[in-house]
């Protein structure tokens, strides 16, 4: 039963991951953005656990547990606390033209699918066809970081990019070695803490967390 429907379920979860990446790209509210990020973490946890169950790779259970603890619980909690203390909980960002951004996203997805096609033919894993989706969600998070001007969405974009990378590793070679994975997880955690401190500094200096202020060299 699991052996039969397992790969199909992984494909479904990969598709949901892509859907969530697009939802994050077009989401205006910061609070919903963080909830979407947590949902993406949950999907990633399910996919990793499923791959672990299908292939019997026990270290994947560890990384699935790590994903659940870090990306579904800890990081969203830190982000929620951050926006509460920065007082930007109900901030709405004026995005430039959502349809254009989405079109750019579609182009990126096609690019990623084309790039991944030759690689996934070489791979022998059950998850090889999802590699394109993993690459697409990395690129989409990257696009999100570029198009946002507020600092908190940029941080969320950075964290979502790590989600995509993690999924790519699972899809292509059943996850990275445990040492690397722990290192990356710690890096992301520390990065989000440092970025939190950084955001407070930006706000203190400019009275807002809009990173466009950083582009000016001189004070007027």
């Amino acid at each position, binding site marked *: 039963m699991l052996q039969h*429907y397992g790969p*199909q*379920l992984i*494909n*479904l979860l*990969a*598709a*949901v991951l*892509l*859907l969530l990446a*697009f939802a994050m790209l*077009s989401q205006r509210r910061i609070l919903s953005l963080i909830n979407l990020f947590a949902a993406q973490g949950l999907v990633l946890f399910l996919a990793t656990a499923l791959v672990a169950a299908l292939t019997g790779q026990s270290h994947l259970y560890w990384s699935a547990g790590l994903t659940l603890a870090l990306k579904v619980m800890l990081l969203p909690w830190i982000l929620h606390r951050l926006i509460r203390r920065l007082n930007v909980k109900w901030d709405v960002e004026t995005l430039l033209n*959502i*349809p254009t951004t*989405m*079109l750019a*996203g*579609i182009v990126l*997805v*096609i690019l990623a*699918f084309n790039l991944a*096609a030759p690689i996934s033919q070489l791979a022998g894993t059950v998850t090889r*066809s*999802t590699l*394109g*989706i993993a690459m697409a969600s990395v690129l989409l998070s990257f696009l999100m970081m570029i198009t946002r001007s507020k600092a908190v969405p940029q941080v969320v974009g950075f964290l979502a990019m790590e989600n995509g990378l993690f999924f790519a590793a699972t899809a292509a070679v059943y996850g990275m070695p445990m040492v690397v994975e722990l290192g990356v997880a710690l890096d992301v955690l520390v990065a989000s803490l440092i970025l939190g401190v950084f955001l407070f500094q930006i706000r203190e200096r400019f009275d807002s967390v809009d990173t466009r202020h950083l582009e000016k060299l001189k004070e007027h």
Partner: protein
Amino acid sequence: MNLAGAAAQFTELMLALLLAPLLTGWVNQCRAWLQNRSAPGLLQPYRVLAKLFDKEVVLAHNASPLFRTAPYLIFGCLALAAAIVPTLATGLPLNAAADAIALVGLLALARFFIALAGMDVGTAFGTLGARREMMVGFLAEPALLMVLFTASLISQSSSLSTIVDALGHREFAIYPSMAFAGVAFTMVSLAENARIPVDNPATHLELTMIHEAMVLEYSGRHLAMIEWAASLKLFVYSCIGLALFFPFGIAQGGDWLGIVLALPGLLVKLALGGAALALIEMMSAKMRIFRAPEFLGTAFLLAVLAMLVHVLLEG
């Protein structure tokens, strides 16, 4: 064309004509319950239709013959569409009359006539409604086509009847692309049936209305035809959705036992779908008309993604 097939086809068409107002009534009732109002009776749409057929027609002085014929043309288009969509059985005589693309064309023809009729008398409201309807239509149609293309890619045919056969009678499999297509189709049908995020079906005098603005000048039996056609449109869209995403329990060919067995399934599916529609309408707020392109653009992109995901994951 054999006699049994023709009889089955006739049953299906009659059922669609009779059930369509009931579906509208059911959705209205669910909406009223969710809004904590006391609900109108389930048969209210039939009473409204009977009342309208009984009233005399009041025509504007400068109404052209087009204004008088348009309700019948619109009703005819939608009745034909209802006969083409497989609701109870596949492989019926009219199923071959149009594939999915021609079906979209048929729905577009109905839209074309209602927009022309809206502009015919020359009131400001009618023109405004017609323009908005055409805008929503030209954005929704490509998305609907993309959804149908995704289903066609999976089942290797653009005929709805064959799609239902292929999807409903094969071994159960999970199609991620159909999840995307399902979300896109829901968004398109909300827009096409003048439902809440795009248009409000419960208003008659509001600057934001689309469908109601076009039919303001109609009265009597003409209005009855248009209202009935609107119910039929909701029915047709629900049945396309059921055929694409829940094609289980639909009989094959003119198999009478299968058709009788398919009827309770159809009723249950429609009841659940109507309740879900009422729930979606309850939970979302009407958006500004200028947000509609964004909404429908998202639907189109989701449908394109569905095709891409199909090529990548299921190819």
